């Protein structure tokens, strides 16, 4: 834990205040990298990537959670885990290829646009599907949706069956069922899935590299570009900022929703 988690984090913070040299860095204390970050378009990019990530989380929730509920409630018990395995299949293909494959699907003359045109639903092809923040969000949803499904399904699986029988006896309708039962009982899973998607949404450089365009640069890509430019302290600073932002968000979430209570085991 200390060697593989705490130490790298500490080094990230320490290196971020080092001074940049031509090809490496040397010990110093300077906030130049932070200045560089906060007084350039990087801050704006960082904030908008947080915003885009949030949209991905919300979309994954509205698509993934109902799928998990469907599997828990409508699929036979013996088949449930097999259905979950289907969502693992995409991971057998390298992530680069998976995301790259979205290009011909989403591009101006791609599958989606051709379909919409053929159906006479649109007159000219949409160009916002790729090389835009929308493209990045679609990419993130496609990549990370299984994690939302996994984590919420595991939480839903832990709900004892008697809950559904009691609800049948009391006459709980679908809307109530969702609001009063599924949402609170699957909260730990929803939380885990959301954090995972949010963090990867701002941290993984691959998706904006392939599907993004101007205005869709995330923290991961900023750091990657800094490393390519051999500006290691800047890369470290970006990582440190990302880390502290997440900690701050978790703390805020804790103050608002009391995570301890949200995540306490149901027994």
């Amino acid at each position, binding site marked *: 834990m200390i060697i593989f988690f705490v130490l790298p984090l500490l080094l990230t913070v320490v290196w971020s205040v080092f001074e940049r040299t031509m090809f490496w860095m040397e010990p110093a204390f300077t906030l130049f990298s932070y200045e560089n970050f906060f007084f350039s378009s990087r801050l704006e990019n960082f904030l908008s990537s947080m915003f885009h990530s949030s949209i991905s989380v919300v979309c994954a929730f509205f698509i993934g959670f109902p799928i998990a509920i469907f599997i828990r409630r409508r699929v036979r018990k013996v088949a449930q885990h097999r259905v979950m395995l289907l969502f693992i299949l995409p991971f057998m293909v390298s992530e680069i290829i998976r995301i790259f494959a979205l290009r011909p699907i989403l591009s101006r003359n791609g599958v989606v646009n051709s379909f919409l045109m053929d159906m006479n639903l649109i007159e000219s092809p949409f160009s916002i599907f790729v090389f835009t923040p929308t493209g990045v969000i679609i990419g993130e949803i496609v990549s990370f949706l299984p994690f939302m499904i996994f984590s919420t399904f595991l939480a839903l699986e832990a709900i*004892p069956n*008697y809950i559904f029988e*009691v609800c*049948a*006896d*009391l006459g709980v*309708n679908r809307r109530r069922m969702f609001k009063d*039962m599924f949402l609170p*009982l699957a909260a730990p899973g929803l939380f885990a899935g959301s954090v995972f998607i949010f963090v990867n949404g701002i941290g993984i450089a691959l998706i904006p590299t392939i599907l993004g365009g101007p205005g869709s640069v995330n923290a991961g890509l900023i750091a990657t570009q800094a490393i390519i430019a051999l500006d290691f302290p800047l890369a470290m600073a970006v990582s440190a900022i990302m880390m502290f932002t997440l900690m701050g968000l978790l703390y805020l979430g804790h103050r608002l929703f009391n995570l301890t209570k949200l995540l306490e085991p149901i027994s």
Partner: protein
Amino acid sequence: MKKNNAIELKNLIKTYGDVYALNDVDLNISDGEYFVLLGPSGGGKTTLLRSIGGFIRPDSGSIVIKGKNVNNLPPDKRPTSMVFQGFALFPHMDVVQNIGYGLKLQSIEKNIIDEKVNKMMDLVGLTGLHNRKPHELSGGQQQRVQLARALILENDVLLLDEPLSALDAQLRKDMCIELKRLQKTVGISFVHVTHNQEEAMSVADRIAIIADGKMIEEGTPQEIYNKPKKQFTAEFLGEKNILIGKVHNLNKSKIILDINNDKIEIANNNYNVSKNQGVSVSIKSESIQIKKNVKPKTNEKNSIFGKVTEITFLGQFVRYLVLLSNDQEIQVRSSEEVANVKLNDQVILNWKLDDFILHNE
């Protein structure tokens, strides 16, 4: 005055593959009656209860509750509430929320709900535990919450599926007394499923014995315990002394049975049997007197000879195992040790004519 029937079941059949979970069950349960479905596990009593509640659709037959056929109604549209096996509470809600949830669904004003919840909590003995979560409650308290959650809806029938099976023995006894008291207070019909005969005897106004999907017999606890009509009932209630033989001779007042060439005489309580018919009889082990056989070969008709094979001291009584000449074993319970009866002694067993009960299958 005959009470109206709260529940009428006719020709209820439910099969799972080739297995009959319910095999042509007829049953009437009166208004305000504490009715217990008693039987071995897997005998169909839970299936029967769940059919009444609407959780299982029977293949055929009719279910009428309060004069209304409910065959095609879902659980929430039936005038029944269910107390489930185990501690089936909403884990994320506190006691008040659990109990009031059913009313909240009916869009009832919050202050009315609160008032009803408080009343109900006092009734079932949960006073002061308002904001506890289920995991902060004892097993007995959790079952009380379930009871309150079901009773607050003021339905005509309360269904209880093994409500006490997860509690320890002492708590179960206490809860039996409370369930009975609660039923008398609210005055609605309770239908209670259990495999525990003590529990059944202590709460029931009437009991039905259910096994292999069939209704074996029904009656008051006294009838079922003292005069079981069927051999199965006697066996299920723990009767060890069951003798199988045939009718040797009979008249209006007495029946003489041939038990492997030993002749015994029992009182004829209007049994519907004929000569040479195969029957089984049972006798409570505490109804038999045991004596040392000092004069062998005296053959009274209400006695039988045997040899003592085991003497066990069990606290409140002493148990003797006696082997009869036909290799059948009889248990005798005596409130105190019988002087001079020792292991391997030849003994003579006596009883009153009335004590033997005949079962005709």
